[in-house]
């Protein structure tokens, strides 16, 4: 393909790089890159890869823009609230660079659609937010022999690498053969995330994408890069291919996609299989809590939020002991040992841990408010009778 005069000017600042030149820019303009997830990690990448002139950008996301996204998902605006993320992102990409062809996939990736969708792209970028999707993408990319540019974030910390067993590096299963049990490692919704973190990690991923397209430089194959924005430290570890990996090892046993929700223990978790739930205690959802309270059951609430969080969803019933102090103060609950205790926090993760701690101390009637006070507030708001106007 030949670049137009306008394209020479538009991309001039990068095509004067000796590693790029006109030929490199042509490679970029012929590349097909799929961003799986157009949230925190996907947003900055969509903008920068579009600006760089990537020929075809696939956008895959089944979610709609909501207010809690806008602190970090910079491709979406306040005006886009309620719109599908892929539609919102396509609008911004078109405005930025009409050279880019955007293909939108407004659905969730699953074992049925993954191979068809991924096979239309050269490079796949993992911008997802859950373990089943990460294992699914990994397996599909290994089976299709495509590079997978990995990024993951948590609070102030990020991990980035390129999984490309074809080029001698490991795959995600070599690194993490087994996923953590559901609820063991909290999500961004549960533990928070610094808004600029996906910008930093996402753009490291975008840099890897460009290098893979160009075949220049030294991609993060076989290297796992950690970044910590709280201490501003970067750490690189060598990661190796596992010869016994069931997917990319010498004698693979996984040759097709499987049920990743099952693999990650989510179905067992939803079914409530006791043996599959090292995550005792039993959860209580907002609807069940209100039913119990409606029936007049005597419940003691234990709010384990930190003091500064209590203004977010005001809740003054029961006893307040921050999770950070519970280990040292749990004995103050001994007079209530025989009562039914419902432990709550903002999103239900720390309270699950707190309930587990109390169960270990001999409290037999402890329940966790799943989804936390946020879910309780949303539930009560939705179920309260609306005033006639």
């Amino acid at each position, binding site marked *: 393909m030949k670049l137009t005069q306008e394209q020479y000017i538009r991309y001039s600042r990068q095509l004067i790089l000796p590693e790029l030149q006109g030929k490199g820019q042509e490679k970029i303009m012929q590349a097909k890159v799929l961003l799986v997830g157009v949230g925190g990690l996907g947003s900055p990448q969509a903008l920068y890869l579009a600006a760089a002139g990537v020929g075809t950008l696939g956008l895959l996301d089944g979610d709609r823009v909501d207010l809690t996204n806008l602190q970090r998902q910079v491709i979406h605006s306040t005006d886009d609230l309620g719109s599908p993320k892929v539609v919102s992102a396509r609008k911004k990409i078109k405005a930025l660079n009409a050279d880019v062809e955007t293909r939108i996939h407004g659905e969730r990736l699953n074992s049925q659609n993954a191979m068809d969708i991924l096979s239309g792209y050269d490079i796949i970028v993992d911008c997802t937010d859950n373990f089943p999707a990460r294992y699914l993408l990994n397996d599909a990319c290994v089976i299709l022999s495509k590079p997978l540019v990995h990024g993951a974030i948590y609070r102030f910390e990020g*991990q980035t690498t390129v999984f490309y067993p074809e080029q001698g590096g490991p795959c995600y299963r070599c690194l993490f053969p087994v996923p953590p049990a559901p609820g*063991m490692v909290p999500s961004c919704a549960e533990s928070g995330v610094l808004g600029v973190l996906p910008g930093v990690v996402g753009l490291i991923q975008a840099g890897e994408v460009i290098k893979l397209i160009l075949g220049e430089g030294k991609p993060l194959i076989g290297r796992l890069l950690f970044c910590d924005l709280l201490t501003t430290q970067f750490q690189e570890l060598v990661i190796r291919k596992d010869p016994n990996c069931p997917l990319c090892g010498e004698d693979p046993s996984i040759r097709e996609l499987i049920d990743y929700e099952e693999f990650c223990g989510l179905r067992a978790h939803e079914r409530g299989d006791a043996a599959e739930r090292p995550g005792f205690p039993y959860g209580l959802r907002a609807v069940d809590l209100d039913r119990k309270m409606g029936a007049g059951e005597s419940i003691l609430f234990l709010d384990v939020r930190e003091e500064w969080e209590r203004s977010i969803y005001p809740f003054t019933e029961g006893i307040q002991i921050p999770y950070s102090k519970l280990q040292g103060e749990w004995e103050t609950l001994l007079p209530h040992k025989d009562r039914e205790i419902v432990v709550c926090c903002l999103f239900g993760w720390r309270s699950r841990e707190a309930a587990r701690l109390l169960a270990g101390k001999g409290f037999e009637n402890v329940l966790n408010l799943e989804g936390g006070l946020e879910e309780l507030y949303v539930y009560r708001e939705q179920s309260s009778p609306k005033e006639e106007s």
Partner: protein
Amino acid sequence: MKLCFLSGLREIVGQEEVDLEYEGRLSGLLETLCERYGHSLRRLLLDAEDPGRKSSFVKILVNGEDVGHADPELRGEEKIFLFLPIAGG
């Protein structure tokens, strides 16, 4: 030895690096750490069913080598990295 706590573990330990005097098996080191940092670390580092073993999903590299399921003898001069998979995006 120097212990480096990376993603998912640093917030529990409260610092990214810890210097520790220890000689013996890795499993003994993990038990020492769990005693020091409590329940929050124990549930991530040790297997829920078999508390003598490292959990299946925590990643531990001793002098750059992944220990996998092994329980190596440590001499006290190692640099050890510990981290978890994270899924946020």
